[in-house]
């Protein structure tokens, strides 16, 4: 039996159900809206497990599900050496979001990452501590800034309402996922740099640890992959 893990609620779940339906496999919740078991029609030997999108990377790594749908941002942030644990089978064309670095919109001298690096250096000299970037994507942001050779900053953890940290004076900049940029604007922030840290979207992934590769690939073929 192939175990398929799909986000358990909201728009992501609906778009996921639509994606499979367009490929002839009908997924649905079993019973009430509050139940986290699912039903699969149109495919043999596949069972549906509804999970929080944030848990899907870990379940794939552990091999408790054969297939899973989650954002590429979560895979890369949560799984060190992710290519050794999962195989990307198909980008699904929804759940688009960019991981970006944003600073106060009033910083009219900050347009590029080079500006940011200089401002970070000045800030540290002026305030005696490193410029703080609030984020929950610690590994991705750190790896990117290290690759870009930006120093003089520190990451501070923010698991929610990250855009508010600048006004609350607990951070000078933020790194977060955004799709429309509306929340950033409402909090007087602007994106810097021309390229985001990561372009993320929903992805169908195969677990390496779960095995049963033949069966999983047969199902992928049935989906037209």
């Amino acid at each position, binding site marked *: 039996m192939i175990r398929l893990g799909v986000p358990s609620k909201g728009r992501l779940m609906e778009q996921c159900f639509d994606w499979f339906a367009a490929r002839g496999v009908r997924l649905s919740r079993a019973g009430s809206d509050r139940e986290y078991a699912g039903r699969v029609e149109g495919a043999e030997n596949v069972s549906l497990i509804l999970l929080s999108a944030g848990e899907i990377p870990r379940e794939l790594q552990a091999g408790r599900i054969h297939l899973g749908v989650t954002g590429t941002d979560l895979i*890369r942030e949560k799984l*060190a*050496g*992710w*290519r*050794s*644990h999962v195989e990307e089978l198909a980008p699904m064309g929804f759940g688009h979001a960019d991981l970006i670095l944003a600073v*106060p*919109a*009033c*910083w*009219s*001298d900050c347009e590029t990452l*080079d500006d940011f*690096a*200089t*401002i970070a*250096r*000045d*800030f540290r000299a*002026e*305030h005696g*501590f*490193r410029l703080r970037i609030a984020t929950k994507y610690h*590994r991705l942001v*750190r*790896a990117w*800034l*290290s690759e870009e*050779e*930006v*120093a*003089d*900053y*520190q*990451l501070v953890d923010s698991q929610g309402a990250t855009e508010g940290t*600048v*006004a609350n*004076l607990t951070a*000078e900049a933020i790194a977060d996922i955004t799709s429309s940029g509306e929340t950033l604007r409402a*909090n*007087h*922030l*602007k994106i810097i740099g021309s390229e985001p840290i990561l372009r993320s979207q929903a992805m169908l992934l195969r677990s390496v640890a779960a095995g049963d590769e033949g069966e999983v690939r047969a199902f992928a073929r049935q989906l037209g992959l």
Partner: protein
Amino acid sequence: MSKPAKQAIGQQILAAFRAAGAIEVAPDILLPAETLLDLYGEDIRARAYVTQDPIRGEVMLRPDFTVPVVQMHMANGAEPARYCYLGEIFRKQDHGETQPEHPRDNEYLQAGFELFARDSGADAEVFALFHSILAPLGLQATMGDMDLVMDAVRALPVSDARRAALLHHVWRPRRFARLLARFAAAPAPRNFAETSALWTGLRSPQEMQARIDRLQADALEAPLAPEWVARLERLFAIQAPAPEALRQLRAMTAEIPDIAEAVERLDRNLALLSDRGVDVGAIHFDASHGRHTMEYYDGMTFSFTAPGRADWPPVASGGRYDALAAVLGQAQGRAIPAVGGIIRPGLVHELGGLR
């Protein structure tokens, strides 16, 4: 691989350090995180195990010995002083996209030696000590000198602001090269549009204005002559057996006279090493060696690597870190030149031990 065998090699190294006059010290394993984070920044947070103590705040499993040894010396050491130590250090091995087949250990031994002295022979003493201990292993010794690099940058005919920016980024080669290219070009004028955005965050409008003033002054500065860029590039690219590198460096003093003092110091160091029986012709000198290490060393740097083991970290490494020692001694109002290094007994063991 057996821990007792690695411990035994560590003890052997420690005995050699003691015979060289060092006092053994045993810094704590659990260290306050703040000092280390402030010195090394996010680089160390990515690599060290950080945890929270309800009373002591953020603490870290010892990611290196240098900081606690320097602090210990600054608190109560007399000079000159030689210290040695053997113990575990802890480093996360965060992989990139693919997990390596043979991941490095997260917990491994370091045996180290630190010398605090105003004596001009200190560099040669430390290098020769490591060289003699590691002699049975047939390692490749590489040496660099951050003094040369920094003196050459200080010699550039640029404003203080530009010089400070270049010195700050000397350890980040691509950012440094970009800055240098920018200073050598005619600046593109920038407009700082007034925004209607509400002021938010801790950085003040005065701080922004100070940077804009600096950028505007910088835009009026004459571009750095291209021959200076070429000189720096040539200096940084020098890689040769030490005596040949010394000859090339000496030739470069005609173009960058300000490096003459550092070149003479290197000459004296190599002579002292020869006196101590080191074959300096077998030392590979790489002018940029110290630029690829952590922002830490500011004079001689060295590493001993195992030939044919490109995926290994150096078996031993070290260098001079006067600025770090000065920063850590600030609270006590003390500054003392310092030079030291570490050997990894685990790698020595994998190479078959010291005899």
